[in-house]
């Protein structure tokens, strides 16, 4: 009885395990690939031709990079809120929070440090 129940459980678990991993399909890979090609080609074209002012180009290529990362996450890495019982998504959200704090914080702090440490003409009047 015990062994039988145990076996049932193993089979159940295995089936569940198989369903857990989304391998995608030819269609989802092609959608992801075509979206990536478009989302890569437009930023390169904008920078290479200089069709827009630098500030606008910077904003647009940042937005395209964010969208392309999300496209890769969904169509290539098969991320969804259910994979591994939601732990994948939770780890990803935690990582994004840490990355944003670390990168934005470093750049912000070091920028101000740099600006405030610059020798300026005011030095002569400080005596």
């Amino acid at each position, binding site marked *: *009885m*015990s062994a039988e*129940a*145990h076996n*049932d*459980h*193993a089979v159940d*678990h*295995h089936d569940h*395990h198989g369903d*857990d*991993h989304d*391998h*995608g*399909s*030819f269609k989802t*890979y*092609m959608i*992801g*690939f075509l979206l*990536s*090609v478009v989302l*890569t080609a437009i*930023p*390169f074209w904008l*920078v*290479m031709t200089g069709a827009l002012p*630098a500030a606008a*180009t*910077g904003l647009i*290529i*940042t937005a*395209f*990079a964010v969208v*392309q*990362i999300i496209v*890769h*996450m969904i169509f*290539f*890495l098969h991320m969804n809120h259910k994979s*591994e019982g939601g*732990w*994948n998504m939770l*780890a*990803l959200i*935690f*990582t994004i929070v*840490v*990355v944003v704090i*670390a*990168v934005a914080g*470093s*750049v912000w702090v*070091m*920028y101000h440090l740099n600006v405030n440490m610059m020798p300026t003409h005011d030095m002569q009047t400080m005596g």
Partner: protein
Amino acid sequence: MSHASSLNPDYVDEAGRPIYHPVEEPHHPEGHSTMLGFWMYLMSDCLIFAMLFAVYGVIGANYAAGPAPKDLFDLPLVALNTSMLLFSSITYGFAMLAMVKNRTAQMQAWLAITGVFGLCFLGIELYEFAHMIHLGATPQRSGFLSAFFVLVGTHGLHVTFGTIWLVTLMVQVWRKGLIPANKRRLMCLSLFWHFLDVIWIGVFTFVYLFGMLR
């Protein structure tokens, strides 16, 4: 039995009563947590790249009167490199689709094509590095170049090890076939390979494209 199977069988005794403190840990099939563990590794790898991006963001404009991105970067070459990595991502995807259908030969062919794209990427990147060093733009020339070589070099090193791993798994599948352990390994490499493409999106946007805008 019907009562027992409606509950988790590891947690009921023979009479079907629940057991709250099992003597033995419940059995889990081998490798059931590998994918989650590998995802955790990728997230920690993500933090390494975040630090390198932060360093590049802080000192990426310190040229020390040396060459700037506009003097060094060749965007058509970067576009070609980007397409190599993108093609390798889709061909690895096709290898995984073949793996799910247990078509070993087809999967090995797609893996080989993926490996060739990976080697093309590395070849182009090494050519770019060699060209820059030839021009005197070495890692020790300026803060910008130190940060550039460490960030792009770390990504390139990941692609190198990914390619070695890919060849290793092709040999494993050739020798042992598509056993569950090999499928699991191929799924881990799939995450790793697509993850490197995600990092490359950040590299070509924030290093190369933004470099040309400055």
